[in-house]
């Protein structure tokens, strides 16, 4: 793995317009969510109490932040950052230039996917670092430790979106179709991320959904333990490595 190539790719991606768009989306979430949780209706707080065993403002905030903002945002950011990983270069013809260098298609794909993950991570962590002090002022009972623990786990769900979009970009021949498939699958999974909470009978089955692991801090807030955080990170890491391996296998014999 070429560390310098990875670094240069991250820098180049940070300079792209699509990354500015992604940063803008993150900034919107950071600014909008505190307004949404400012005056919650009674019935919403009651639902929080039923679902999570706690009806404090911080519970509502973390639920909305994770499900309403971050879950949707990471799907779009993943697609923006990795949706055209190889297909865009193929369409512009520059892939022939890049793959004429002594770097195998597998190594190229993995470095580019990793680079997209790094950019996702930078945007995600920066968004949370900016959001934390804003939310701490506006949400009574704000718990920084829980907030950042939730961020740490959900970040791997964000990486899942990058890895999945990257896989679709090499699995589906047309870029627009690949984007559509990514959106459909990822939003379907996001829609089911709290299924085990809404209906406890589905709790076990819901664990096949990576996003159910991504929201584990929210669903275990009442009795959160390090095992919840580390276990979910490990599961998500496994999902992500599997997606990267599938993508690498797909480009192994890539012809230009």
């Amino acid at each position, binding site marked *: 793995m070429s560390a310098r190539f990875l670094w240069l790719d991250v820098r180049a991606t940070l300079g792209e317009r699509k990354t500015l768009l992604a940063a803008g989306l993150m900034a919107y979430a950071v600014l909008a969510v505190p307004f949404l949780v400012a005056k919650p209706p009674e019935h919403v707080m009651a639902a929080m109490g039923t679902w999570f065993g706690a009806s404090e403002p911080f519970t509502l905030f973390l639920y909305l932040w994770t499900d309403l903002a971050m879950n949707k945002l990471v799907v779009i950011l993943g697609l923006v950052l990795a949706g055209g990983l190889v297909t865009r270069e193929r369409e512009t013809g*520059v892939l022939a230039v890049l793959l004429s260098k002594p770097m195998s298609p597998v190594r190229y794909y993995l470095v580019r996917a990793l680079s997209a993950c790094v950019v996702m991570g930078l945007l995600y962590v920066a968004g949370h670092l900016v959001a934390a002090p804003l939310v701490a002022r506006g949400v009574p009972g704000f718990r920084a430790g829980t907030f950042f623990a939730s961020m740490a786990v959900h970040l791997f769900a964000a990486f899942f979106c990058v890895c999945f979009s990257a896989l679709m970009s090499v699995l589906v021949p047309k870029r627009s179709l690949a984007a559509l498939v990514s959106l459909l699958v990822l939003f379907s999974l996001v829609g089911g991320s709290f299924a085990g909470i809404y209906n406890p009978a589905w709790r076990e089955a819901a664990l096949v959904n990576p996003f159910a692991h991504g929201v584990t801090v929210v669903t275990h807030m009442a009795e959160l333990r390090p095992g919840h955080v580390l276990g979910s990170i490990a599961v998500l890491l496994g999902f992500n490595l599997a997606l990267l391996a599938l993508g690498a296998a797909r480009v192994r014999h890539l012809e*230009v």
Partner: protein
Amino acid sequence: MQHVIELEGLTRVYGGVRAVDGVSFHVEQGEIFGFMGHNGAGKTTTLRMLLGLTRPTSGTARVLGHDVVRESLAVRRECGFLPASYALPAHMTARQFLHYVAAMFDLAPEVAEARIQALLQLFGLEAAAERKLGGFSTGMAQKVGLAQALVNEPRVLLLDEPTSGLDPLGRHELLEHLRRLATERGVTVLFSSHILSDIETLCERVAVLHRGRLVAFGPVEALKREHHSESMDALYLELARRAA
């Protein structure tokens, strides 16, 4: 003596179409070798097979003694390649892009910077080095394209229609650069083109493809004599007529 580039019965079939059909020729050290043929004759497929970007259906090819299928990374380490049509990444500056390419060769940053600076000077791109490639003219983009092909100081250059889209001055400059690379640095150039005047200006030996098949190979002057042709145009038309 080992040839720098050596093709033996190289074939590529797409579906039922033989894009390249049993092509055999060789290229010697330090020569600028012309690779002629009409659009769709199989030149691009052949060049891509030489870099291992496309796998041959049958036949073999070696570049600097390396098998292009089994040792494609070793081939690419020694080669520079400029494809026929491509768009450089619009969001990168010329210098960024050249560093990006240099990193794919695992060049140390200081070595890469020295080479890139020299290439920017060589192609008169210093003033535009920090500009985004999206704003480059065709001629400037082609110079960056050639610079990226030279960043590893290759022993072999594979150029696919490098003068297409260039104005007469840009074409003249590029041909001069290639001549200097061959004479001063001993770089072997496989120059693919359907612009016959460029081939005539640069190359002493040529291979001519027609519908994937090699229809002529040898010194330009000998081929002209053999086919009673006074010019490259006449030679090419005669070869195409016979092959049809």
